[in-house]
């Protein structure tokens, strides 16, 4: 479809960020905003919530169990409002977990699946979607309208936040990039893509509150874990482990920075 495959730098295809590059013609900006509004209105995202709900209730794995008894932090089986408190510390694993890592925990404990099997397809592609990304759409959708409220009260939560903050600004890799190389200054863009400053509430709020998201570029439901993974790819780093402590910490940093914003996702992004 495109003449040029995606490009170099990092993008969190942020929501409708309000930032104006100086050389950015106003009518162009207006038309792009119109495009973004129209794709959000015409988004099939609810389909993925529906598919995810089906998977949530589907009995599978060696224990032939569904995920319906999964404790996402508000007690076994409570889905409503759970997403906006994640990542959070879980006593049973003695670890801070984000939505994806928690789902993985439940797949292993409730369904008896191996980590290897459950993480075989953490990110979908056009040929085959990902169970994880459908589930994420369902769970996140059940928090629509609730303000993001991620706690740093537990020492492991505050440690995760601190680690995430340091990871965000750390320059390394073949191109000397950090997350902040692209998401560190107001009003910048990569190509036509506007870049929110994710280390500050004004940028983190609209972006974080609309992930996970349906990406129209590949017509896929995409999780926050995928978003971070693809940023690191474009930062020219080695690959972060799925649901690793580093990615959870980074999610923690972004989420806490977005605290109090009503959750509006799953979103729709270019």
């Amino acid at each position: 479809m495109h003449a040029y495959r995606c490009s170099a730098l990092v993008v969190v295809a942020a929501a409708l960020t309000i930032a104006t590059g100086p050389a950015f013609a106003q009518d162009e900006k207006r038309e792009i905003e119109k495009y973004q509004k129209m794709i959000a209105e015409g988004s099939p995202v609810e389909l993925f919530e529906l598919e995810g709900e089906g998977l949530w209730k589907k009995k599978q794995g060696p224990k032939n169990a569904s995920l319906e008894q999964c404790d996402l932090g508000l007690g076994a089986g409570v889905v409503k409002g759970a997403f906006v408190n994640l990542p959070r510390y879980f006593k049973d694993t003695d670890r801070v977990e984000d939505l994806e890592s928690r789902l993985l925990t439940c797949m292993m404990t409730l369904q008896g699946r191996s980590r290897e099997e459950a993480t075989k397809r953490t990110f979908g592609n056009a040929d085959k979607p990902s169970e994880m990304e459908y589930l994420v759409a369902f769970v996140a959708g059940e928090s629509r309208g609730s303000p993001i409220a991620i706690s740093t009260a537990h020492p492991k939560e505050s440690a995760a936040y601190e680690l995430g903050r340091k990871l965000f600004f750390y320059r390394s890799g073949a191109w000397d990039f950090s997350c902040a190389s692209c998401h560190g200054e107001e009003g910048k863009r990569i190509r036509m893509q506007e870049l929110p400053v994710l280390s500050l509430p004004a940028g983190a709020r609209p972006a974080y509150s609309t992930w996970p998201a349906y990406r129209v570029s590949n017509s896929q439901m995409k999780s926050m874990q995928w978003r971070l993974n693809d940023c690191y790819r474009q930062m020219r780093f080695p690959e972060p482990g799925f649901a690793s402590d580093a990615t959870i910490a980074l999610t923690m940093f972004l989420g806490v920075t977005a605290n109090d914003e009503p959750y509006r996702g799953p979103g729709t992004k270019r």
Partner: protein
Amino acid sequence: MNKRNLLTLALATAAIAACATSPVDPRPAYSESDLRQMDAVHRRDFHPRGIAKMDRFDLDRVQRACNQYKDNPPEDLAKALQAEQIGAIKFPQGELLGDWKKGQKIAQSGRGMTWSDKPGSANGGSCYNCHQLSPEEASYGTLGPSLKGFGKLRGNTSEIQKYTYGKIYNSKAYSVCSPMPRMGYSGTLTEEQIKDVVAYLLDPASPVNR
């Protein structure tokens, strides 16, 4: 990390969490122990994939200083590092001006150096991701300054050619914590490719200067 640092961090955290209107700069100046922690976490939680090997986490002196000093190292250190980086540029013999048409393709392409890029495939310079160059290309980034009319404004002297080549090869030689990747030094672009991009920027016939 000592107690005072912890307290400062805690206060900063609280300030960020509490105050959306006047945020503090959350960027840390990495201490030696922070740098060790970052190294350990990246090596623990990341894995090599494709051409992106773990040696990408080996910080060189420039990356180290930029992390330690929030991109603003003390003047002496900055000077020393810049001198080192200048020395690392391999200027080719003879002509520095290549083919602007090839340079345009390189400027447009964002390929290269990621774990999904195949070894041996041609890399791009990703120039348009961050810079405006030709006024004909509407889709350009703004992370870097506009380079529209670059050659028209600066001329096409051998000094300018040398500066342009050097800046693309190793941006850190001119500004030690420049956000721009070191395109030659990192092995992203070849000598030939950089010459083509120099031509794209300086050749009077290039759309950049028309």
